[in-house]
């Protein structure tokens, strides 16, 4: 059975036993290492693939409830990814800072992300290293195997590649719709086998 001709892309199959689906549509793999899940917020319909490590336990010192990592909707955290909040020693105090990731963000496999802030509609490739306290604005595309040094600011609608990551070109104006359609389509195709 080849499926409906209307779906131009093949479905992405996963074994039903591997993923937990929450009521908001998040699909979290059982083989993902989630530390400190009470400090992690997932917007709906986010996929966390197997082998990924999300450190929600590295929170800043202080009373009360803290959000360490927050992900938006229709995000994809690839296999083997590491999401770790950035830390800084300032005037003798050591502290972790919260990491905020926007909607429609796809992070490729085996990428290490320590950025402070990632905007919406961002596409990050495989095997990347995103340094600490990086600010990635909206609609950015980062090529595979890029190394972004710490404290970089990546402006909106840019395409960065290389190591150290440097600006390559501007993305077309329709990037936001394209990425949104791609991430929504990806989630729709992500089906149990």
């Amino acid at each position, binding site marked *: 059975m*080849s499926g*409906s001709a*209307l779906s131009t892309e*093949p479905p992405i199959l996963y*074994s039903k036993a591997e993923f937990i689906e929450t009521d908001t549509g998040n699909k979290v793999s059982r083989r993902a290492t989630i530390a400190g899940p009470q400090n992690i917020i997932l917007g709906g319909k986010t996929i966390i693939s197997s082998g990924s490590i999300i450190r929600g336990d590295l929170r800043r010192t202080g009373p009360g409830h803290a959000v360490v990592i927050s992900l938006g909707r229709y995000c994809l955290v690839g296999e083997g990814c590491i999401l770790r909040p950035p830390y800084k020693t300032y005037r003798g105090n050591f502290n972790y800072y919260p990491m905020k990731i926007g909607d429609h963000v796809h992070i490729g496999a085996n990428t290490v992300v320590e950025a402070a802030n990632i905007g919406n509609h961002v596409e990050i490739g495989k095997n990347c290293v995103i340094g600490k306290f990086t600010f990635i604005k909206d609609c950015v595309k980062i090529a595979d195997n890029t190394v972004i040094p710490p404290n*970089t600011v990546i402006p909106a609608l840019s395409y960065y590649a290389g190591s150290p990551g440097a*600006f390559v070109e501007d993305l077309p104006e329709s990037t936001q719709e394209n990425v949104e359609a791609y991430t929504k389509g990806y989630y729709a195709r992500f089906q149990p086998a």
Partner: protein
Amino acid sequence: MAPSVLYHCPCLSTSDIPPPPHLPSSSHSFHPLNTLFFCEECDAVRCNRCVSVEVSSYYCPNCLFEVPSASVRAEKNRCARNCFMCPNCRNTLAAVPADPESGDGRIPAGVAEGPYIMYCNYCRWDSAEIGITFEKPTGLAAQLQKYEDSAPDSLEFDRLKEHFDAFLRTSALAASTSGTHHHSTHHSHSLHTNSITAAASAALARDIPGVGKYNPLARSTTGRGYGKDRSVNKDEMTEYRSRSEIAQTAGAGGGEPDVELMNSLEEVGEVASLEQRWENSWVTPLQTKQLKPIRIPLHSKRSKRCPACTHILIKPEQKSQSVRYKIKLMAANYLPGIVIVLPHMRQLRDELSKRNLGKSVAAQVDEPPPGMVAGNTYEFQLNLTNPLYDPIEVRLSVQRVHVSTAPGGTAEKARRPPFAISLPTAKFPISPFAEAWEYEDDEDMFGVEDDELGIGMGSSLSASVRGGREKDGRARPKTVGVLERKANKTVVGGEVVIGKEAQGNVKFNMLVSYTYRSDDAEGGDLGVHPSKPEIRRFEFYTVVDLGPIISREEARMDL
């Protein structure tokens, strides 16, 4: 190469028939749909190459500060705040306090004073290597200003400017004293104008004899002719002595100091690479240890206009980091999108995905190489999406490739892979775009359920299509013709027969023409009743690339 459909932009050329795709030069006029714009006034497709671009705002890519256009020129298109680039690796520099000299390892709490240096956290270059330190971590640009002012190139430029300035003033004075009196007010004005424009107009008057008549600077010398002007320039120009001997400066091109440098080189890394050097236009530092940090150049947000009617196509918002647009006329909102699917590739990929189930990404088997074996017949499917709010009727036609009879004809023919395409020639409709909740639940039709088709579509359905589908729908699985319709997408099947000795890629130009009924007031300005719907049509060319052809010998070797 995955199969793709690219759209043709005529780019203001007179004929809108695109070049045949087997020519290598044809690739420049075909673009993916998401990079194209559409001008509503001209009813034409525009690409990034033919639009006229103007800058809407400038911003620094590091601090994201929006620089007003007035100060952009003053700051030489660079960021005037603390943004610097490492000369070694082009990464942004951070201002950090220098390590204290004392052997005391502890950092006293709350104290981070001390001289600041710029530090690159990628290649570990720091400004202490060239001896630049700062007192405070902000206002780095101002602190570096004095270094920049005392650089040899800016000093030289200032001296040159003074020299020419003085000369221009004297030549203007000479011209005015020899002229009539009532021009003196003119000249006092021209003296106050920019000395650069005065120099430019004098140069123009010298080179082009006719212009001098209209130039107030030379008007007074018409009586004397232009020889005097020229001789005035030649005689009074004092010789200019440059401040420093060029040949003696290191790095300026092969002088003595350069040779000594090369003699004493120990490793190649000591010499700066070309990319690192050409930031400086005067004396490029030859050694890596002389490279200075560079101010970060500004980026700009651009607005684009149609070249023919200057209608604005893209107008970004004022805020520097906002990705929204005040005006955005993208072709994807006007032209139907086309995606190609090759069913035989999809079958291979489906089997692969079943095998890859549960494996990690690294261990997965890659996709099979795309290609079609020569001598076979393959079917392909075109998935068309209608972006308009009105239903459209589309007709596809393959462009005939003219066989050239030029002397190079036989070579051309050999390069052109022989294949035959069969596509449905009748018009087929595509439903309008609407929100998801407006569609009926089971619109998944396979060409047999024509009753439901009749409900949802309205009057744009042509009887011939319906009749054709009824005939073939139940007999055998169709490959050529409308295969499926759902929401605002239609899948059309076609076949390609590849010749036995074919090589290269299967590429053909396809003309897509569609008609739609527009009910809005656009029809009103023709003088007809504004509410009368009129049928408008539009057509564009595309190039369809189905992928490479695997020759039969290779296929046999693989097996």
